[in-house]
């Protein structure tokens, strides 16, 4: 499979209020393939958002390089191509909405690309369809729920037809229903062969990815399939990350002679439990 996002020994430093340097990414290397669904987890300050912002050149590495579709993010002549191919969805939907009508908001980015009117209309229609917000197209965004607003923000990104979509804690401010709406869309886009980078604190969400990357202090400490990451309870606890409840329970049930193999989802957990008791 073709690489779409590559980090090659990337280092990035912030200077804080007191003038001291803080290393947010430390010599980090990473290769994301086209069509992958990658979740990134890590506690606050582990470098997740810094990493995300490097993918579409919002931040540039101090050392090392980031390549998107083979183009270096530091190459000024390619920056618009890179930003067109990587869409970002942020945490707070209210900070991402610019227009007073849903469909105008979705058209905003596409209009800035200078596309012909017919093309913009087509893209807005398609994006609204994908996020299932068609019936709200003439509504005012402030009348929508958090989950719906976030879907509008996603549609705005989709209208740019990106290959990669980065969700930077896009579910953190939503209620459970809103979180599920956003997660469902991410999965749908993934099955549509788009590359998804999903940053989250919620392990039930990370469980749905093909691959999870665990960050700590700007470094990748583990990279693997969800089940392999979750089974490393010691690491998750050390990093103050949530251990999925199914994993905790399955681990305890070993003492009672109940051995469960596949406990990624609650349905799988129930299935195996019921076979054993």
């Amino acid at each position, binding site marked *: 499979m073709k690489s779409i996002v590559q980090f090659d020994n990337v280092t990035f430093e912030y200077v804080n*209020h007191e003038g001291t340097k803080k290393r947010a990414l430390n010599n980090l290397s990473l290769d994301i393939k086209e069509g992958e669904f990658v979740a990134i987890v890590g506690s*606050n300050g582990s470098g997740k958002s810094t990493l995300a912002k490097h993918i579409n050149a919002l931040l540039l590495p101090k050392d090392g390089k980031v390549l998107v579709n083979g183009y270096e993010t530091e190459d000024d002549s390619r920056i618009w191509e890179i930003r067109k191919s990587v869409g970002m969805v942020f945490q707070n939907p209210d900070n991402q909405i610019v227009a007073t009508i849903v469909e105008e908001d979705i058209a905003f980015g596409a209009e800035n690309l200078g596309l012909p009117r017919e093309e913009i209309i087509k893209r807005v229609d398609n994006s609204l369809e994908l996020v299932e917000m068609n019936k709200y197209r003439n509504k005012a965004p402030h009348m929508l729920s958090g989950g719906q607003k976030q879907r509008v923000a996603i549609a705005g990104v989709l209208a740019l037809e990106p290959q990669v979509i980065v969700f930077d804690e896009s579910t953190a401010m939503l209620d459970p229903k809103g979180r599920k709406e956003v997660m469902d869309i991410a999965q749908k886009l993934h099955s549509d062969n788009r590359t998804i980078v999903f940053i989250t604190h919620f392990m039930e969400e990370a469980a749905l990815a093909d691959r999870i990357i665990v960050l700590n202090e700007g470094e990748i400490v583990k990279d693997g399939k969800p089940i392999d990451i979750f089974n490393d309870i010691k690491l998750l606890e050390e990093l103050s990350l949530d251990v999925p409840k*199914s994993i905790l329970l399955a681990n305890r049930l070993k003492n009672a002679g109940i051995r469960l193999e596949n406990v990624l989802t609650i349905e799988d957990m129930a299935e195996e439990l019921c076979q054993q008791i």
Partner: protein
Amino acid sequence: MSTNLENTSLPIIEFNKVNYIYMEGSPFETVALNSVDLSIKSGEFLGIIGHTGSGKTTLVQHINALLKPKNGTVVVKGVETSTEKSKLNELRKTVGLVFQYPEYQLFEESVIKDISYGPKNLGIDDEEISRRVHSALEHVGLDIDEVGHKSPFELSGGQKRRVAFAGVLAMEPDILILDEPTAGLDPQGRKEVLELLKRLNSQDNMTIIMISHYMDEIAYVCSKVLVLDSGDVVMYDTPKEVFKHYDKLTELGLDVPYTLKLAEQMRQRGVIIDNVPLTLDEMYNEIVSAKEAKNA
């Protein structure tokens, strides 16, 4: 913080047939509270659940008279919120309200100044303010020497939220209301907030009212749970009694704690978990006894 008037068995907050309507007479008219009757005891840790638009925030804003009922009465520590205007200041000292994302409301140039702001407006003397600031920061687990003179904006997200909590605690309220206090925090931050609230409830005997979407948190900390739907009180009982209504809660678009979701999935596969396990420990015991029953 406590007076002789408080007795754990007496209601500290009472709603009598409270109605509230937003944008009355306009096309957007919405009934936010529909004849709500409610009695909350002193020392309770109440969780309020309901989907977006169910009336949760409207309800709690009645407790410190930010909103007043269209009909009916709200009585807090014997003070009726809509009639006794002269006592509103007293009421607002009694009821501390922490909004969603309270860290967005920090504004002072230092942590100490930010926390002092409320007590200063009450006209409290400097010595007492200093005592309260120290005590509030200690409660939220922040070191005054380390962060006191820093700008709140230099702190991490979790620390900022704790400073915002400290600002409300410095008012030394008897009743603390929090709207989604753990939203947007990482797992460690969420855990710290919940432990803080448990301490305030058990050690400082504060009555706590918490709105949350996280049912595992509600099951973990609350002594009572109130379920709202379209402005109606649907259930008001202990977590065990409320969460056993799996179907009803799901119908209302609400989540249930992990253990009950698992029990329901097992039930659908023919294994019945009788009791209502709210914690992993309880679930573990239920599974082990189900296994033993089968083997016996």
